[in-house]
């Protein structure tokens, strides 16, 4: 009889332990048992990181105060797509809101607008980082479109000043206008797209 009561007591304690652990789990993390988990309405985080099967961070979206950004990386962690704020590259330089598409080394296509006014621009760069095509406008209403050679020299310029006529120029490697339209050389037009 004594043995029976001991066995019953031990069994009761086992069950109590089982139930106690269950109650704790239910209290601490009921979501673990919800099947299927319902979609949450809003999730708020400071940083979202999406990793691949190897655990490599391939997408990082951060609300960092000085540089909120969304970056997509390749398997070697090179940024390949960037959307967000670009702080000034140096003293006297401007900050931008931009989207960059990059190769493994550098930006190749950039869409940008000035963070504090400023202009809007789009440019394409070659594999050496030279801007080969750009179009943009300043906040004074001036604008331009330019194409450059592999040395970064302007070879085609379409000037679009806010308060004057438009003009198109072809420029040689020494910076001299060799053809222009609508009829007169417009050497200054080549500066507009920069």
């Amino acid at each position, binding site marked *: 009889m004594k043995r029976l009561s001991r066995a019953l007591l031990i069994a009761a304690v086992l069950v109590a332990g089982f139930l106690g*652990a269950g109650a704790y789990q239910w209290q601490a993390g009921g979501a673990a048992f919800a099947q299927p988990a319902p979609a949450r309405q809003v999730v708020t985080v*400071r940083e979202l990181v999406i990793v691949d099967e190897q655990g490599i961070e391939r997408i990082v979206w951060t*609300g960092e105060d000085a540089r909120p950004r969304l970056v997509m990386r390749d398997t070697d962690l090179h940024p390949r797509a960037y959307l967000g704020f670009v702080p000034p590259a140096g003293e006297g330089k401007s900050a931008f809101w931009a989207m960059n598409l990059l190769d493994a080394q550098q930006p190749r296509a950039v869409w940008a*607008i000035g963070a504090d006014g400023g202009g809007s621009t789009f440019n394409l760069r070659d594999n050496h980082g030279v801007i080969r095509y750009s179009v943009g406008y300043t906040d004074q209403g001036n604008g331009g479109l330019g194409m450059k050679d592999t040395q970064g020299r302007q070879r085609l310029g379409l000037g679009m000043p806010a308060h004057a*006529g438009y003009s198109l120029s072809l420029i040689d490697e020494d910076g001299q206008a060799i053809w222009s339209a609508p009829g007169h050389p417009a050497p200054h037009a080549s500066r507009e797209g920069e």
Partner: protein
Amino acid sequence: MTMRTLRICGWIVAVGLAGLVGGGLFVALWASPAAYAEAEPPVTERMEVHELIIVDARDRPRGRWAVTEQGPQVILMDAEGRPRARLGQLVTETNVSPQTDWYGLLLTDANGTDRLTGGAANDGSLSGMILWDHNGVKRYGVGFTDKGNGGLSMNDTQGRSRFAIGAAPHTGYSMQFKDENGDTLWYVPSRQDRFAPRGE
């Protein structure tokens, strides 16, 4: 130490062990590893939410990923909470339609003026890019339609086309400057050029 004390100690140990075994059994049989997220943050394989908000160190919203009224969008905001960059399904005025539904990028200045967009129409009718100035006037547009037409247009501060390259598939390409009244100042190829025999 009396025999009675020893027995009580034995019972306490036995009861404690039984509780541990019971708890362990529960964990082994029922609990999922996700229950230990706080102990060691694991990678969440999948998460379903209606809206994701990214905040900065001062809890100000700086990013939003949601299905908006226009469609799915990633939105980045400045410190004042103003949307400055959007990527996703957008509704924007283009040369083709005042309400073009497309997937692309949209950059907006601090005054809420759209300044730059590029993308492809949702119905496949258009792909292109537009730049607006600080007054919201369309100054540059380039695009191609699904009919094969395309072109590049540059406009003045009043939105009047002053330079254009036409890329019509059947009538040939052309380039022209116009004055502020819409009169053509310069045009290539000239009518004579266009109808000249081709080097024969």
